[in-house]
């Protein structure tokens, strides 16, 4: 039984090191070759990337959340208890996440839970709205009585997304003037974005502020 688990743990640890840029080159070669063939491992990495990005951005912006809610961690704890359906899966992901170390500065805020991460994203989306990532004149979701609500935010900042074909057109036209390395990255980005969709609006750190990311984390 232990023997069956061990390779997964080794791989997870290698994935962590790879994403943290701490994996030796020789092991990187082997891991990348395995990633090409192993769809499940690749999906695990994709989950790490998403969760890691959420945590990295939310953990680095705790001041904004704290300002909104000095009693935040208590309500997160209550939310965790209420969200029976969510939990085990996300906790497992977070526990094994290469970004678990990102949690340390915010440990007191009970971030080590999928629900907490979701709440943070939700709050962040709202604070982005508050910061003005909206068309002028568009109404903001209310923060009732100074208390942030945890409802998921739809249609945030979707004032003027560039249609997919047009954005692809812009990137292709732009790539013509880039260096060979930059051009390769930009055109690769066009292909990699198919799963996420170009229409996704992002915040300054490149994290989507719409609900799709949250759904991805919970799935």
């Amino acid at each position, binding site marked *: 039984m232990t023997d069956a688990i061990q390779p997964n743990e080794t791989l997870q640890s290698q994935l962590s090191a790879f994403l943290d840029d701490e994996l030796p080159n020789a092991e990187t070669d082997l891991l990348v070759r395995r990633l090409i063939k192993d769809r499940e491992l690749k999906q695990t990495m994709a989950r790490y990337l998403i969760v890691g990005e959420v945590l990295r951005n939310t953990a680095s912006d705790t001041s904004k959340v704290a300002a909104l809610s000095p009693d935040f961690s208590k309500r997160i704890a209550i939310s965790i208890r209420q969200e029976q359906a969510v939990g085990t899966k996300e906790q497992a992901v977070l526990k094994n996440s290469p970004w678990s170390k990102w949690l340390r500065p915010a440990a007191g805020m009970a971030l080590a839970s999928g629900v907490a991460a979701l709440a943070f994203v939700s709050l962040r989306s709202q604070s982005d709205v508050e910061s003005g990532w909206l068309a*002028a004149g568009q109404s903001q979701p209310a923060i009732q009585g100074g208390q942030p609500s945890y409802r998921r935010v739809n249609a945030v900042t979707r004032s003027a997304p560039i249609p997919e074909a047009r954005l692809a057109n812009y*990137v292709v036209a732009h790539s013509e003037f880039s*260096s060979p390395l930059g051009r390769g990255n930009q055109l690769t980005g066009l292909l990699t974005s198919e799963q996420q969709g170009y229409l996704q609006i*992002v915040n300054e750190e490149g994290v989507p502020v719409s609900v799709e990311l949250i759904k991805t984390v919970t799935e």
Partner: protein
Amino acid sequence: MIARFASCFLTMTCLIASTVATAAGTEDARVWLERMSQALVERNYDGRFIHTSQTQSETMRIIHRYAHGQITERLVSLDGVGREYIRTNAEVTYYMPDTRSVLVESHAEKDGLLSLIPEYTPGLEAYYDISTSPANKLLERKAQLVNVQPRDEYRYGYRLWLDADTAMPLKSQLVDRQGHIVAQVAFADLVLREHITDRDLQPAVDTKGFEWIRHEIHRQALVNEVNDWRVGELPPGFKLTNSRLQSVVGSKTPVKHLVYSDGLATVSVFIDQNDMEGQVGVSLQKVGSTYAFHTDTAGYQVTAVGEVPAATVRSMVLSLTHPSGGNHESLPVHESAVIRK
């Protein structure tokens, strides 16, 4: 006295030697960058790689051929719905099976631009700290590490593991000012081939029933009209390097395309005149590691696209000025719509 003089002389000698060594190291790094660019353009290669960005990863295959000054390149997504593109000196054909469409973008310079090897001048060092250091083997090949660290927040840098023999990038990381990885490409295998056949460069997508969207560059470019537009607050080092008019999906009239570069990073600004009235809004989107900041204003749609931090594309759009009766006026973008952090 003699001892003090000897000490000073020794210190000065060390300082000069160190400066000379650093300069030589930087020049060496720039040579590596140019060798890499040349290899990416002029080598024949076939490889599979993992592309990871902040929130996603994807497996790709790239097949690149260079023959008689002509480039043909095929990039295929091995995951998802199988999007791919074929790039030649003349055009990029982008196959999108999920939307049953094919986008064809003709290039302005059919022979020159894409096969051009960029020259990295010493001036680049004002904006990037460029250095080399030894690296362990990758793909069982001796590697050379080249670090290109941005000196400010307006651009990204690179960490490049280059094949010591051919200068092909075996692994590359796009990094921000703090050294965080924005995107990474790591090859699982890379074969440098003598010949690549036409068959290898054929798309796997069956385009029967697909919609084909073609665009031509307007070579008669109303250059003066394009050049009347200006970015008021350019990030340090960026300057206008090109401008043209071109067709764009969904636009009835040619779109103005301004290109700005600092010698390594490039930003395009697209200005589309439209008849929409009273709409004001902004959006920030991301394609891979490329940001697109977009604003609708009365009469214009302006979009800046570049593999640079979001703040760079945003500041360029918001400081754009347009000609009005001989005087330049700022676009009617409401700053209140975007809060600067």
